[in-house]
């Protein structure tokens, strides 16, 4: 996944309405009318959010069907969440090494000046 693509995914998920739509679609495909039901929002308003989600690759819509049910592309969401997990792992491992490094240099120079 490219960096731009990840940015688009996170930008799409930055909005609470769009997060709610994604959460709803995680439970199964739904039409625009069904998605609009829990919100005090017009169908065009919901459609605008769906377009953002579609462009980011988070949802897909059937082109030919009359009711065009929306479908969550779980792999796109997984990739976005994977970035968070990967970043967390990198910092965790770096900090583990830093902890050991700090112990080493403080043992080497216990009297105060820890600099090289």
């Amino acid at each position, binding site marked *: 996944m490219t*960096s731009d693509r*990840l*940015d*688009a*995914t*996170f*930008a799409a*998920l*930055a909005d609470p309405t769009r*997060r709610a739509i994604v*959460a709803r679609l995680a439970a199964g495909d739904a039409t625009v009318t069904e998605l609009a039901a829990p919100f005090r929002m017009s169908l065009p308003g919901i459609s605008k959010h769906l377009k953002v989600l579609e462009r980011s690759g988070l949802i897909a819509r059937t082109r030919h069907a009359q009711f065009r049910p929306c479908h969550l592309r779980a792999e796109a969401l997984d990739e*976005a969440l994977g*970035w*968070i997990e990967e*970043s*967390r*792992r*990198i*910092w*965790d*491992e*770096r*900090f*583990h*090494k*830093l*902890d*050991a*490094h*700090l*112990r*080493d*240099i*403080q043992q080497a120079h216990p009297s105060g000046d*820890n*600099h*090289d």
Partner: protein
Amino acid sequence: MTDQELGELSFTRTFDAPRELVFRCLIEPEHLTHFWGPAGTSAPLAQIKADPRPGGVFETVMVNDADGSEYPTRAVYVEVTEPERLVWTETHSGMTVTLTLSDLGDGRTHVRIHQARVPAEFRTPQAQAGFLTSLDRFAGYLAGLPPQR
């Protein structure tokens, strides 16, 4: 989903070392080379460039120990306030990393990492100012915490 903003990551760790020393480890290549590469990788000293002042470069290369493949990262420092805060932005991804160091008063240091993928529309000076303000508040909150035992 959690209340944490997606696309943002917070990570904290307490180190048994004074804040000035921890800060130096985070900006000096001679220290960075010892820990910058995560498990299974190394960060060769010769390939680390760090010019810790706003606008200065911060470049590192992580080398995979198994196959030698290289992962270069190029960033630019946004803020360097020794010994409490360090901010840089990765040039290719636009991701901003903020490290906040808090002196726990007993020789230990609390470090908080905040990493955010900031979409282009949020990269304006106004948006950045708001971003820093919220970090200021968090740093203030951390500073007011009693040392943890």
